[in-house]
């Protein structure tokens, strides 16, 4: 089965005052239709940057892509016509659930208006975007029959995400809603255009702990029901365990391991992954950290970027990036000295 989305050796960096920061180094990733893929790593490992690179919304001016491809439905998103991508891919085939639902809503418009605007341009019923070619998009008309149909679809989906009294809710402003309500709205907005892939960037980080589980469960349920693939970035291994079908681990801009969720937690191969899992607090509350620090990306360590903190590292690890080592069952790792344990 060909993957829905395949990131191939993507490298990019940011120009900063102190030099060029290599934020992603030949990262590869593939997601199948209808599967929930977790992207796990510490803050600063590049997962959000990868998400933004796939969507094509990197910071203009300072970001530079230095290599690689992003294949989606047979097209390389990096080299295709940006206008076509904006119309057909963004907000339609690939949608987005942001990390902070509060700041992701424009505070001076009602949530209803913002949702309907998304649908005006991105609803599945819109075969051709409204408006004439030469007039600026902002003055385009919203055909009233489609508008009514879209409005009904919105109410239906607000129900599906368990938001009470949808009609009144749509008339409210973002600051009048709770964090959980806002994130449910975001999930609804991500599903309304009927996407193939939803990129959820740490969707529960900004929420209360009690709400986190609800939101995660909601994402999982809806994704399965609608056969939508999800790329879920998170630093929370527990969340990955709960709802992901497969997990990818990133460290300092490099991808280090990928496995189906059961194998991942049962038999992690990469030294970083094993340390990450070991760092989860024990039943009695003791937690073990990982010695050392995440490297700066201006002059990162050569080869495998984890080698300064790895007790298994040798000269080989320093010199060259480890190639992909297939361990079977969809489990691969980039390491010269992985843990090999029998299941």
């Amino acid at each position: 089965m060909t993957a829905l989305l395949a990131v191939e050796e993507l490298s990019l960096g940011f120009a900063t005052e102190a030099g060029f920061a290599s934020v992603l180094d030949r990262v590869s990733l593939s997601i199948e239709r209808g599967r929930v893929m977790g992207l796990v790593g510490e803050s600063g490992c590049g997962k959000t940057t990868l998400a933004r690179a796939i969507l094509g919304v990197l910071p203009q001016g300072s970001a530079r892509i230095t290599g690689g491809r992003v294949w989606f439905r047979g097209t390389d998103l990096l080299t295709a016509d940006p206008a076509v991508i904006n119309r057909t891919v963004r907000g339609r085939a690939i949608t987005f659930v942001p990390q902070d639902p509060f700041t992701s809503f424009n505070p001076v418009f009602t949530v209803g208006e913002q949702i309907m605007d998304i649908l005006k341009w991105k609803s599945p019923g819109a075969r051709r975007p409204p408006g004439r070619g030469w007039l600026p998009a902002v003055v385009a008309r919203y055909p009233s029959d489609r508008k009514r149909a879209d409005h009904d679809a919105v109410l239906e989906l607000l129900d599906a995400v368990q938001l009470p009294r949808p009609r009144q809710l749509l008339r409210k402003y973002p600051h009048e809603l709770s964090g959980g309500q806002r994130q449910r709205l975001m999930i609804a907005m991500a599903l309304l255009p009927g996407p193939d892939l939803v990129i959820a960037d740490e969707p529960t980080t900004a929420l209360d702990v009690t709400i986190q589980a609800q939101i995660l469960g909601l994402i999982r349920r809806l994704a399965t029901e609608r056969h939508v693939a999800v790329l879920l970035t998170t630093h929370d291994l527990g969340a990955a365990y709960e709802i992901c079908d497969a997990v990818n681990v990133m460290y300092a801009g490099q991808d280090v391991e990928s496995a189906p969720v059961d194998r991942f937690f049962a038999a992690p191969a990469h030294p970083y992954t094993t340390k990450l899992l070991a760092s989860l607090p024990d039943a009695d509350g003791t937690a073990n950290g990982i010695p050392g620090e995440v490297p700066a990306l201006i002059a990162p360590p050569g080869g495998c970027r984890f080698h300064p903190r790895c007790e298994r590292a040798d000269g080989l690890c320093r010199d060259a990036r480890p190639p992909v080592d297939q361990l079977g069952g969809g489990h691969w790792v980039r390491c010269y000295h992985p843990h090999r344990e029998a299941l």
Partner: protein
Amino acid sequence: MRRLEMIVSRLAWFVPTLAGLVVIVFLISNVIPTDPVRVLLGENATAAQIEAMRVKLGYDQPLPVQLLRHFQDVLSGNLGISIYSQRPISEDLAQRLPATLELTLVAIALSIVVGIPLGVMSALKRNSFWDHVVRVISVSGLAIAAFWLAMLLQFLFSMKLGTAPLNGRIDGFGPAPVTGFLIVDSLLDWDMESLGSALSHIALPALTLALPAAATIVRFTRAGVLDVINSNHVLYQRAMGLPGSVVVWKYVLRNALISTVTQIGLIFGVLVTNAVVVETVFDWPGIGTFAVQSILQSDHKAIIGFTIWIGALIVIVNLLVDIVHSFIDPRGAR
């Protein structure tokens, strides 16, 4: 409800603020260790003349009594008699107010129409050549002395090029006075000749006032737009593929405009400040020239009257701006 509370509380503070202003202005003129009567009459006045004038102007009464009388006078609209025109000061001010208001409003309109689009474009094309040009002009606009700019424009366009009249508000008798706003009255009277004359006369002074105001608006709008452009909600809309023109001209613009509206009060204060000197240069018959004439004649009461009127005007405008802001910003009253 919060909006109503805000309006009510601001209105409640309006009266004490004005009262405080009256007190302060009164104290300024009476508690400072210079005898205003002596200043009024000049160096060569005899003691007898000074004493006579003191009694005439009521300066011989104890201070609290004077303050009370002052309040009574102000409340009844009696600000004294202008030395120059020998008419009640409030009458003079009332007659001249429309001229100043018309000038100020035209200047604000100009500065908004020019300033906001320039600020938006400057932010969108950040650090481009045009951005730098706009920023240089706006920084310069805030460094030029208004009276000097007035003289410069007058020199260039009126004296040298002859494309604008030298001074005054209009040639000839003008339209039938209804509102006191010559432009409005000309239109009401359908007096095209007066309209043309009024417009050509208001052009240079309005331009002079508009430049620093536009510079301020450009700066604030640019900063506001930049702020919003880098926000998470713009990122979200971009990520969801909303067309760029919708993101900018519907969403970003409104955020930036809302923050600009809060600055209108500040800008109005700047405009009034500059109007005083600009009116003088163009011989514009507004309350600015009234103030200047009163200064030249050491007409103390007139200066006090002018101060109170201007103070009240600005407080009212700020209140109106806050009310408008509370309506257009759903995050609630400030």
